[in-house]
């Protein structure tokens, strides 16, 4: 039991330092030293350090952060940093804890990013439900401004950059970066056609080059600047550097956020840190990235798949993705068809309506799954939903179309017996070809 990889608090520093949400405490423990160091460096040097650290986007896509920053054309006079705090993926609740307990590390990281691309302003886009949190964050930003870390003439460098919060109003799609930018501009949160990409002139906020990073990604930056890229790379694996916050929910004894070095195992996360499966039950399935990542079949608590390392590369090997690392655990009592129906209901509600395959596809998937769950499945319903889902893949402007197809395709692939059980139990007689056309 004692051999589990210990948690490591690069982000969740409140576990080691009480009251680190207060600027005084944060500063006493090295807070804003990284920003001071950064403004003493050339912006391009800051980008080089982040590049060398191998930090990858923690929001889900895993794109190398420093590379993203390097896409920004330095010659443009107006540029923006946007922090994605929309956190709406089912099962994800880490950014909230970061902003609540260690807000200055986010503000400092955002200011370092701003310096690196010489940004005009920083916007932190929070989902509307983070109402209380946004108001607390405003006060922390004001504390940082008064101390000279944000606003005019940052630390005497001559660099001016303000940090603003912006509240969304309940739309999952606004976590998608181009929809987020639309929303911030006061439009419907619907994805844009790309190119141009946000980093390019014409593609970002107010058509200016823009870096969009997740809260957790940005919160890693001060540590990297302070300790250097080499130290950061010592944590984790060769391809997956640093720590990752795993949000564990569902059938575990201790649901919660766990910050672990990348490379710890799934077994350590679920059984050591999250306390294992309650009531002596066996594990049946795991969704690694909320509702959107492919579901993984796990045949009980001794399945060797639980020894898979929590890294970007190892999760691809087991047919899924690490994504946002929102781990939803399901025990042997869970009906995976019900899981597919639940996730589909979510995506049907959250489809923004712009692309037909996603808007119509999620509607029909939801309707058909309703019928299956009500005991009125028709014989070809499994084929039907699989077919609808396949026709949503790769044909929409943003990833949501694929996300909404995943729960259908991978649940049927990995748990065919759960679906067949519903067809077998159908209360109605199998429909005739003529009836199917009604």
């Amino acid at each position, binding site marked *: 039991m004692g051999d589990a990889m210990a948690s490591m608090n690069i982000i969740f520093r409140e576990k080691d330092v009480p009251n680190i949400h207060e600027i005084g405490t944060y500063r006493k423990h090295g807070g804003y030293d990284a920003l001071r160091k950064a403004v003493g460096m050339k912006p391009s040097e800051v980008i080089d350090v982040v590049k060398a650290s191998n930090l990858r986007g923690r929001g889900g896509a895993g794109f190398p952060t420093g590379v993203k920053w390097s896409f920004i054309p330095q010659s443009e006079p107006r540029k923006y940093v946007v922090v994605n705090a929309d956190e709406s993926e089912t099962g994800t609740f880490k950014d909230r804890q970061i902003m609540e307990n260690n807000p200055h590390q986010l503000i400092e990281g955002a200011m370092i990013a701003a310096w690196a691309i010489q940004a005009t302003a920083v916007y932190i886009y929070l989902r509307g439900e983070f109402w209380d949190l946004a108001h607390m964050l405003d006060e922390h930003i004001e504390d940082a401004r008064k101390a000279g870390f944000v606003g005019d003439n940052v630390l005497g460098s001559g660099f001016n950059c303000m940090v603003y919060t912006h509240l969304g109003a309940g739309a999952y799609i606004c976590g998608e970066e181009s929809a987020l930018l639309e929303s911030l501009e006061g439009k419907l949160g619907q994805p844009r056609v790309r190119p141009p990409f946000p980093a390019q002139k014409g593609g970002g906020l107010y058509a200016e080059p823009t870096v969009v990073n997740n809260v957790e990604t940005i919160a890693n930056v001060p540590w990297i600047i302070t300790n250097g890229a080499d130290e950061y790379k010592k944590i984790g694996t060769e391809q997956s550097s640093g720590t990752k916050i795993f949000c564990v929910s569902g059938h575990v004894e201790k649901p919660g956020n766990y910050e672990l070095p990348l490379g710890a195992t799934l077994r350590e996360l679920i059984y050591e840190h999250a306390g294992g499966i309650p009531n002596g039950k066996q594990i049946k399935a795991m969704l690694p990235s909320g509702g959107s990542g492919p579901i993984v079949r796990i045949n009980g608590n001794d399945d060797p798949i639980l020894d898979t390392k929590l890294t970007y590369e190892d999760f691809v090997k087991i047919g899924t993705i690490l994504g946002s690392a929102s781990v939803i655990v399901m025990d042997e009592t869970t009906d995976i068809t019900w899981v597919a129906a639940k996730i589909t209901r*979510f995506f049907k509600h959250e489809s923004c309506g712009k692309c037909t395959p996603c808007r119509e596809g999620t509607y029909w998937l939801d309707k058909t799954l309703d019928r299956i769950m009500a005991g009125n499945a028709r014989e070809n319903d499994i084929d039907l939903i699989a077919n609808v889902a396949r026709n949503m893949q790769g044909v929409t402007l943003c990833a949501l179309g694929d996300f909404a197809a995943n729960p259908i395709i991978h649940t049927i692939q990995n748990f065919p017996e759960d679906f067949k059980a519903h067809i077998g139990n159908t209360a109605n007689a199998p429909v005739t070809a003529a009836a199917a056309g009604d």
Partner: protein
Amino acid sequence: MLAEKYAPRIEKIFAKYPTKRSAVMPLLYIAQEEYGYITAEGVNEVAVLCDMDSTQVRSIAGFYTMYSEQPKGKYWLQVCTDLACALRGADQFHEQLKEHLGVDEGGTTADGMFTVEHVMCLAACDKAPMLQCNFHFHELLDMDKMKVLLEQWRSGDSAESAKPEKKTRKKTASA
């Protein structure tokens, strides 16, 4: 009129953005706070402030779920019944709450106090069952805890504001 009554707040909002249109969402929150829900009057006032068509403002209000286009109860209870919460009993909790208050999904109690509806993931999956009341979170609930909360709200004997307003900052833990 929003423009007069909330002048300092509105000015602060406009100062954040290079375009007036970016202020539409924060201003819609103010309109909702003032009129209780998104009214035609509120939409028109926001449109004038942001230099937009009222149709464009109405479409924004309709797109985002936190703007309500119908009047709600004094306490708007939104229960998360998404997958992660449902695995920990949120569907049952949602049903019990509706039964206790005698309302259907989306319904409001006869005294106008409570509206109950389900909502998509609120990023509090480790604290299920949970709900949002007038934009404030209440977590790790069961019906026993819920009955106490409902009683407090009903009697007005609660720190909970009927309107979403700024809460005090995170408290410092005593050493």
